[in-house]
């Protein structure tokens, strides 16, 4: 099964360092959540993991090749959903999902039977078969998010990286999308998701990586990472964590520093 290894990864934009010495080894068949406060470097890490950024030092390897977003061979192995994905043309859901097949197509050829089957499977998994002819720009937030996940799944890549796929979704759709990602991991794929929804991370991930100020603060099973101490340290919140109906639940209660404390300092 595939593995993704980041070693001593450092990335900076101009003179501003974003990621410092990130060491991470991820295995296929698992769902890993990257969490951390705003500006911690989560999206930068996600982009680096799919080869969109050239590191200042260190490297990311997928199996035995250095990862780089270049060429179709690599593109067939990676599916990436950017944060706040916009769709620039009012294409139909089916056409959007079909974009996921681009790395598989020979130049100037039509969709082959295998591509059509992959598109159907992806639309079925993402539960968008009934929306196939609707323009993406006219969908509701939840429908749109599912169509975008469908585009990701159509690639049938071994590495899936989604940056905040749950943003702006209602609780039902959040659960649905996490179930989708969980299923992909259970089928042997390597799934990485940047999340702000701590309860979702705790419930669905095999592993949680907490980053703050460009460094990995904690990395491991959800219950060992999502501790009140870690949350207080990185998010500056007091949180309640417990178990309801067998599922872990994490609820922020208040900011650690009392209101007005910043001004008093």
């Amino acid at each position, binding site marked *: 099964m595939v593995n993704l290894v980041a070693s001593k990864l450092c990335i900076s934009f101009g003179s501003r360092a974003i990621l410092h010495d990130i060491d991470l080894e991820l295995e296929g068949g698992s769902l890993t959540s990257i969490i951390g406060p705003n500006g911690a470097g989560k999206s930068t890490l996600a*982009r680096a993991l*799919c*080869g*969109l950024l050239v590191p200042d030092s260190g490297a990311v390897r997928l199996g035995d090749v250095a990862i780089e*977003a*270049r*060429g*179709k061979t*690599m*593109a*067939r192995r*990676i*599916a*990436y*959903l*950017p944060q706040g*994905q*916009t*769709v*620039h*043309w*009012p*294409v*139909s859901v089916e*056409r*959007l999902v079909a*974009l*996921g097949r*681009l*790395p598989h*197509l020979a*130049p100037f050829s039509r969709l082959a039977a295998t591509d059509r089957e992959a598109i159907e499977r992806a639309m079925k998994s993402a539960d968008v078969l009934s929306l196939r002819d609707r*323009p993406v*720009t006219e969908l509701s937030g939840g429908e749109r998010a599912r169509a975008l996940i469908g*585009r990701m799944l159509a690639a049938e890549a071994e590495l899936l990286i989604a940056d905040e796929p749950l943003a702006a979704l209602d609780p039902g759709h959040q659960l649905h999308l996490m179930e989708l990602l969980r299923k992909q991991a259970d089928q042997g794929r390597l799934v990485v998701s940047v999340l702000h929804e701590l309860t979702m991370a705790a419930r669905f991930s095999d592993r949680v990586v907490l980053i703050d100020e460009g460094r990995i603060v904690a990395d491991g099973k959800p219950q060992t990472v999502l501790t009140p101490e870690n949350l207080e340290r990185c998010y500056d919140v007091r949180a309640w964590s417990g178990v309801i109906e067998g599922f872990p639940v994490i609820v922020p209660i208040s900011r650690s520093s009392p209101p007005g404390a910043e001004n008093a300092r």
Partner: protein
Amino acid sequence: MTIALVAMLLMLAGASLLTGPTRLDSADFINGIVGSGDPIFRAILLELRLPRALLALLVGGILGLAGAVLQGYLRNPLADPSILGTSNAAALGAVIALYFGFAQAHPLALPAFAIAGAVIGLLPLLLLAGRSESALSLILAGVAVGTLAGAGISLALNLAPNPFAAVEIMSWLMGSLEDRSFQHVWLALPCITVGAALLLWDGRALDALTLGEDAARTLGVDLRAVRFRILLGVAIGIGGAVAVSGAIGFVGLIVPHLLRPLSDRSPSSILLPSAVGGAVLLSAADITVRLIPADTELRLGVLTAMLGVPVFLYHLVRERRLW
């Protein structure tokens, strides 16, 4: 859709050969082609009207195609072939040829200067393209090049030695296919063919860009190579077109808009139809300028804008829910 457009195109090309101050009927038309019949009619048909009809197809085709490609690449429905400054740069080249009298010295000096202008206008964009991958910086650089070239044209008008020289420049700028010969066809054809081939290359990449630049890269698109081909294709193709026809506006903007609702709305699906549609529109416009009775023939660029804008506005009102 493409088949219907091609049928329209063939009809218009035929109509274009039958339109002009000298009346020719279909018998003259057939005699002219097979080589029998009145040699004067034959000359009118083959040496005056045929090049004109062919140039309308070529120029209209590259304008429509370049518009569709640039709208897809920049993900901006406002884009047209002039957005990268190429049209203005080519026009400036032509104006220089007119201003300094090269155009009178040799009939091909003007188109050659126009193509040179387009290529020179491309250089700052290529320099920038090597450094950055964002489409927005390209638009800004294109606007800068276009504005500078526009200022150069104004300067030539400003310094024109006499009103006739100024009028000559202005009337060239308005665009026309009047009195073109096969020399013009042979000059424009290679430029437009090469430009069109470069522009048709990247349909898939344009589709991928529907998802933005990051997602397109993870789908295996080499953005730098795509941008290089598109810039080169626009400069060579549009340079060749402006060289023989002058600046003809709006075809590149409206044709992709009119055809998009008939397609699946992905950028690649309107590339070929836009090329054929542009050829249809410009052929129709070029027939119309010949049919409208006037002392001087109406300029093509004037007509495409005057007819194009109302159609475009109507279309926008109907389609506005999607933008």
